[in-house]
């Protein structure tokens, strides 16, 4: 009897809000920060690594996931929800290859994930997914792409973006520092991502996980040593900048 009635959890409020979706967005804001940067020949994803308990194996917490050979994503929010979305996206990537003999475009798979999320804001008995995703990759024509989705099911393309805790701070940093010359080379783009994360992450390079995709190459997750080297370079550059400023002031 009650099955015939709509058991929707997500319903409109009198002033036109979907509170469940907004609460989901709050859940996202509690997740650890993730940043995505679209370069010219490279796309970069960086996440804040939450410190693990002493007895926990570090490797089992992976916030950057491949969806296909040329697309990957990072998320902020409920890890369990992310697992479901990622699995569906992976299946869709292969299904697309099977039916049309072509790899997905980054926009297609983003649209698929966004549609999936939207469906969960409109069906009975289900709550929205509590994750925002940053989806990066290269299309078959070689164009790099970065997209962001959120629990409401909307998606947008970005040049650089951040999600999760302190996303606003990171985004402001990126708005100031994302210039054509800042992403001129692969290394520069990677350093920009690290710099952005260093703004909000405690204790520096140890708590950063970074992944890159270069055109026609598979996803590469940077080793801790490589991140340390880059962090050291960034520190040096900062010092040199500070020195220059001091000299300018004194002269």
């Amino acid at each position, binding site marked *: 009897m009650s099955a015939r009635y709509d058991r929707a959890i997500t319903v409109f409020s009198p002033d036109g809000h979907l509170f469940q979706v907004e609460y989901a967005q709050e859940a996202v804001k509690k997740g650890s920060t993730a940043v995505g940067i679209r370069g010219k020949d490279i796309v970069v994803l960086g996440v804040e690594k939450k410190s693990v308990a002493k007895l926990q194996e570090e490797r089992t917490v992976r916030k950057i996931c*491949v*969806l*296909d050979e040329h697309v990957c994503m990072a998320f902020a929010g409920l890890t369990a929800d992310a697992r479901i979305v990622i*699995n569906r996206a*992976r*299946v869709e*990537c*292969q*299904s697309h*290859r*099977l039916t049309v003999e072509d790899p997905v475009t980054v926009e297609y798979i983003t649209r698929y994930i966004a549609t999936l999320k939207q469906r969960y804001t409109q069906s009975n008995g289900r709550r929205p997914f509590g994750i925002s995703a940053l989806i990066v990759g290269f299309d078959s024509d070689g164009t790099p792409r970065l997209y962001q989705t959120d629990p409401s099911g909307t998606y947008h393309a970005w040049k650089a973006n951040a999600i999760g805790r302190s996303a606003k701070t990171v985004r402001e940093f990126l708005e100031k520092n994302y210039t054509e010359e800042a992403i001129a080379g692969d290394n520069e783009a990677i350093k920009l991502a690290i710099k952005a994360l260093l703004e909000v992450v405690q204790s520096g390079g140890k708590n950063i996980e970074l992944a890159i995709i270069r055109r026609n190459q598979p996803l590469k997750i940077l080793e801790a040593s490589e991140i340390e080297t880059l962090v050291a370079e960034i520190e040096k550059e900062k010092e040199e900048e500070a020195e220059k400023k001091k000299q300018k002031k004194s002269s």
Partner: protein
Amino acid sequence: MEYLIGIQGPDFVLVAADNVAASSIIQMKHDYDKMFKLSEKILLLCVGEAGDTVQFAEYIQKNVQLYKMRNGYELSPAAAANFTRKNLADYLRSRTPYHVNLLLAGYDETDGPGLYYMDYLAAVAKAPFAAHGYGAYLTLSILDRYYKPDLTRDEAVELLKKCIEELNKRFIMNLPSFTVRLIDKDGVHDLEKLPIGAK
């Protein structure tokens, strides 16, 4: 009419398939590739009912790729063979069985090379050498006579050439060319089409 052959060596698997795509008595294509790359080190050779072959092989291929995306590493050849066989077996007693005969060849880091013979009744057999098609009746005896488990890559190619020679001599169908590939620890390698000079 279609022919598949696989020969396993100590650290490689050599496979070959004919290149004819026929429709009744007409050769529609003479450069048709019957091998499907399941992963970096696994090939699936597939013959049988037109349509079923590509449909089934591509389905297996995409599922093997999905496994790689989900788990971060590729299915082993043994696992892939068993997965394929399970699918064949499941569909066998349905309204839509797949009428395909397969050879799965692969190289595993720990177990080394492997060649798996599968047929449309969902039988699977791991064998040092195997063949499918009418040509198998003519060539299995040649493989029995000249195969040895420690044969080199060159010896394997020579053995393959002997088999093709026999087909050209005694098989009623003209199979002008064969695609030849070799799988070893470095992946899949394309070898020269046989017989030498075939286009």
